[in-house]
């Protein structure tokens, strides 16, 4: 039987496939391009200091000695503080809004939280510096200097000048910044839990507390971890807000009241005025370190998610 071959012309489906495929490939190309240009820019520093660049605790532009340790420390600690504060708070906010609050409360509050996410980070930085820091200095740090310093184990965290800025302030500002994203994602996840689950739980006599902790939270565990990771991603890379309140000192101190620096804030603050090629290269090298750090954290989180499943 003879077959009739239709004239070949691109149909809509093929076109659509190609378009979406090339969009996906474009992302990969851009990512590869960024990595390559970072390595190219940071090559001088990597060659000069070797892989030990990550662990060297020195940042001395005058003598051309650079290392990422203090910036890595500042980035990790400020992000950790942000997570410790923001994750429980976000869960509480999300549970209240999705499960407990009546509509006339949860809708305006929910919108307010989403608006918080739209505030530019420089506004958080300026608010942190001009409003929060003075208040934090008088309201908390003075008190901490009298009451917390003598505590065993954690006392030295609070042993520093009460100037209102530093690692702890940066962590708190970051917490406020990632709170909206985490809480609105968790709230959305809670809303996807089928109502039959709740009804069944209440039906067997569970209290609201038990419903939340034993039924709802286990059901959205993955989504909650995912939301926290997104928040962590933002905290690790946040630049301007941190630059304003962290204090810009390239040192590792155990006190959370002491000025420190983060990777992205160091890059933002020094790149414009850096003239020494090695200095510029080291700043780009810091960018590579941040890239790797984010990659490792995200990969670790993925593994964590898989195990939980």
């Amino acid at each position, binding site marked *: 039987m003879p077959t009739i071959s239709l004239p070949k012309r691109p149909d809509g489906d093929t076109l659509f496939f190609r378009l979406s495929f090339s969009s996906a490939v474009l992302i990969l190309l851009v990512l590869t391009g960024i990595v390559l240009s970072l390595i190219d820019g940071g090559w001088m520093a990597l060659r000069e200091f070797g892989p030990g660049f990550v662990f060297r605790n020195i940042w001395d532009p005058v003598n051309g000695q650079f290392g990422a340790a203090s910036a890595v420390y500042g980035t990790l600690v400020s992000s950790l503080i942000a997570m410790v504060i923001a994750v429980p708070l976000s869960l509480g906010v999300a549970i209240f809004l999705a499960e407990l609050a009546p509509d006339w409360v949860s809708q305006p509050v929910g919108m307010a939280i989403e608006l918080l996410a739209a505030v530019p980070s420089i506004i958080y930085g300026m608010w942190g510096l001009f409003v929060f820091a003075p208040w934090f200095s008088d309201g908390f740090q003075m008190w901490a200097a009298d009451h917390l310093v003598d505590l065993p184990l954690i006392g030295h965290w609070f042993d520093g000048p009460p100037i209102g800025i530093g690692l702890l302030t940066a962590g708190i500002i970051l917490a406020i910044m990632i709170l909206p994203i985490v809480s609105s994602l968790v709230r959305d996840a809670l809303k996807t839990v089928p109502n039959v689950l709740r009804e069944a739980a209440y039906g067997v006599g569970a209290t609201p507390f038990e419903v939340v902790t034993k039924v709802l939270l286990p059901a959205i565990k993955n989504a909650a971890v995912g939301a926290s990771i997104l928040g962590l991603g933002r905290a690790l890379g946040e630049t301007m807000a941190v*630059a304003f309140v962290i204090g810009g000192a390239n040192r590792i101190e155990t006190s959370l009241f002491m000025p420190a620096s983060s990777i992205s804030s160091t890059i933002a603050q020094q790149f414009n005025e850096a003239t020494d090629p090695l200095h510029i290269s080291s700043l780009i090298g810091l960018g590579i370190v941040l*890239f790797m750090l984010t990659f490792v954290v995200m990969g670790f989180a993925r593994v964590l998610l898989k195990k939980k499943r």
Partner: protein
Amino acid sequence: MKPFRSVMIATLMASAATSAVASTAIINGAGASFPHPIYARWAEDYNTETGTRINYQAIGSGGGIRQITAKTVDFGATDAPLNIERLDKENMIQFPMVMGSIVPVINVPGIEPGQLRLDGKTLADIYLGKIKRWNDDAIVRLNPGLNLPRRAIYVVHRSDGSGTTYNFTDYLSRVSPEWKENIGANTDISWPSAATTIGGNGNAGVANFVSRTRGAIGYVEFAFAKQNDLTYTQLQSADGKFLQPTMETFQAAAANADWANAPGFKLLLNNQPGADSWPMTAATFILMHKDQVDGDKARTILNFFEWSYEHGNEQAIALDYIPMPDSVVSMVSDLWKNELSTVNGEPVR
């Protein structure tokens, strides 16, 4: 994520490059942020008078040097002057455009602006963390009549790289061998850990921390101290006299400087001789390529600078900048005549 920043910068640079090529009527310059207010003012006045548009982008001295080296702008501007070897290598000229000054500012209860006397060594020792309290003997000895409290000193510095830091640390290096030996001078340095330091973002950040923190000392451009009513201090000149920061003492520093013997005009005005020379005064510099592709454009740029030297003093003083002395202006004019030419070898002037 943040690595996108580099792509963004690349895109911006590319677009700056195309716009520079596309139009010859607009002059593009980029660099130091410290002189931005006065350059912008001059550019505006010059535009009203002649119709020539001057675009100045305050992207920082480092950025200005990178942009002019890559020829994406018509002139670069920097607070930290390049040395003559680097200038020759890049085939560029450098000349001072205008000056500014830096003052120490403090927040000590009971001390009024202009009351406290400091000398260079004491200032360096404070920033080194060797003097930790306001009633330290070294400060009391300089201020016999003042009642200084036993308050801890908080040292405020710029957390961003800046020409102000460059000039401030250069001054400390000149007056304190220990500072020169251990710390040095740059747009950004590793601050001594013996002192209790606070890093503020920009002049505004430093001013904010000083005015808020009792016991703080910082350094800002004079204009900033004046506009924000900060408590500035007196400072001892190289010849030993204690001076108030005023336009007269700033101008004395510029007039007493030995510009003629500074190759590439690389001269920092810190700690200049003369009893009345304010010790922390600094010029800011313009960079241009010696071989100009477009002779007419080069002439337009020079006309603007010449106009600024001749007719821009009033605006400069109003913004608390210090105009260049006439002797320096004529030296710069000679430099233009002798060093600038088009790629065909014709002189620009």
